[in-house]
């Protein structure tokens, strides 16, 4: 199992418990009490470590290699997922998955960034960094959702748009901008859920929504802490300080009204119990969806526009 440095004490304790279990299976040894005691200790340890994670540590939980990704959620919360491919212009971008599905029987459209689990898949998914064709695929399928009056659920989990030569040649900027404009008045409900990293324009390009939900240890920011550090501090080693300053945690985002709801994660983070977090996400999506369905389309768009219009702090 992969562990971040601040998870190390948990890892050690868990290894010890595992070891004891092996011993415990030997005849004539009873160490159940000891195991129980250690498990309680492990739980307390998780509680105390996760109660005071710094923003930088939270950023690392958000990109934890074991954190559930879009398809992990879709497999757990949706049925009948039918993936759709391609932007009809240039290519299919595996960094964004999109398709038709059902959520509690209701037909919906799902769109999300997708990261890879092993080296091969990471390459294939380009680490969840979309290219213009990814945004254009998302746009095409969002417009399809609008035509067939299907609500859209998006799942945000990307370090950001891919900074590559081809991506620039094919108009990365315009692809993102177009999505922002179209989503702002798309005639169907949109719910965006930040399940991991909400990285900059690459995240926002599928993030303009009627409801924005975030998982407790997800982040959403204008630039990565490393990027911010290298620009403002001229030193990418200052990522920790940058993460602190940027206000990228779920609690700060909620304070600033950028997100509407924070979903509590299982103890130790979503990767410790993917089934439990998927169930929480499913419940939140169903609840928000039924609220949005009560609104007429005109009312829905007016509220979405108002939300965008009033975003900002000036004097």
């Amino acid at each position, binding site marked *: 199992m992969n562990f971040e440095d601040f998870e190390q004490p948990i890892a050690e304790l868990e290894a010890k418990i595992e070891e004891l279990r092996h011993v415990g299976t030997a005849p004539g040894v009873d160490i159940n009490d000891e195991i129980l005691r250690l498990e309680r200790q492990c739980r307390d340890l998780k509680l105390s470590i996760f109660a005071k994670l710094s923003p930088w540590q939270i950023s690392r939980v958000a990109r934890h290699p074991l954190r559930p990704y879009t398809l992990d959620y879709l497999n757990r919360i949706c049925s009948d997922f039918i993936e759709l491919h391609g932007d009809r212009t240039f290519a299919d971008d595996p960094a964004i998955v999109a398709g038709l599905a059902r959520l509690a029987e209701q037909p919906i459209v799902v769109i999300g960034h997708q990261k890879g689990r092993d080296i091969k898949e990471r390459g294939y998914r380009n680490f969840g960094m979309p290219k213009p064709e990814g945004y254009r695929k998302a746009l095409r399928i969002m417009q399809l959702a609008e035509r067939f009056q299907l609500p859209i659920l998006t799942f945000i989990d990307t370090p950001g*748009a*891919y*900074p*590559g*030569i081809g*991506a*620039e*040649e*094919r*108009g*990365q*900027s*315009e692809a*993102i*901008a*177009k999505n*922002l*404009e*179209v*989503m*702002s*008045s798309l005639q169907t409900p949109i719910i965006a859920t930040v399940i991991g990293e909400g990285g*900059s*324009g690459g995240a*926002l*390009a599928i*993030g*303009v929504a009627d409801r924005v939900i975030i998982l407790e240890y997800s982040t*959403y*920011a*204008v*630039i990565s802490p490393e*990027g*911010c550090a290298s*620009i*403002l*501090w*001229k030193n990418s080693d200052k990522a920790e*300080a*940058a993460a602190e*300053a*940027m*206000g*990228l945690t779920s609690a700060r*985002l909620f304070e*600033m009204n*950028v997100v509407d709801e924070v979903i509590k994660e299982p103890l130790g983070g979503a990767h410790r119990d993917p089934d439990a977090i998927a169930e929480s996400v499913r419940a939140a999506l169903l609840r928000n969806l039924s609220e949005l369905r009560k609104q007429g389309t005109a009312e829905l768009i007016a509220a979405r*526009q108002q939300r*965008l*219009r009033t*975003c*900002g*702090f*000036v*004097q």
Partner: protein
Amino acid sequence: MNWFKKLLPSSIKTNGVSRRTVPEGLWTKCNRCGAVLYRAELSRNMEVCPKCAHHMRIRARDRLDAFLDRESRTEIGAGIKPVDKLRFRDTKKYRDRLTQAQKQTGEDDALIAIRGQIKSIPVIACAFEFEFMGGSMGSVVGERFTLAVETAIETGCPLVSFAASGGARMQEGIISLMQMAKTSAALGNLRRRGLPYISVLTDPTTGGVSASLATLGDINVAEPDALIGFAGPRVIEQTVRQTLPEGFQRSEFLLEHGAIDMILDRREMRDRIAAILALLLHLPVPPADARA
């Protein structure tokens, strides 16, 4: 020091300071061709080098001043000022950076929006002030731009914007990212009203500004040789680990790849944009300008 300099008597030695240094203010040098230029002449030429036509950066007010008719101008959103919601601090406090930028530029923030006319066609024009924290877009820029769009809608005027920006203002965190959505949403409303939006991309237009309001024009125009792109060239080079092609992310590259409609010389911007607007609005051919 080479052998020849060693032989020189100290009375005629130079101490290494370049004799090509010119007095502050009166003369300047083209940063492309190196020609020594008379400051006042350069400014009359809209900061375009008379020798090599290199487009240097121009202040937002000077640009709008040259672009709009002299008569009937009103500024939009002038009273709006930035606030430091995050109490952001990097190597310097955001508040101090703001104060410094305000002092240095005489502006409250990085966008100026004006309701005026171009060859008697009513228009809303706005321009980014790059000298103000790299023309970065935070809440004030987003709000002023949105007000400019709304004024265009209310008065039924076209909108022209001149972008010059490094992108979103990191010191305002996520709120700066959201300004991309806010401005793009406003432009969607303008588009639905059937009012023209001409976006002029100038050096440099990158990041969050490029990925929102700057690339959404009905007509996208660029000035010659401007750096335009989403990711900065340095970041791309580090990511892809190969040398970038010649002219990558320059206006000519964008024209070739279909991202912009045309490249216009700054000195003909007013004439050409007036002509475009007149065509889109079914107006007669605008008169030639009396001014040079």
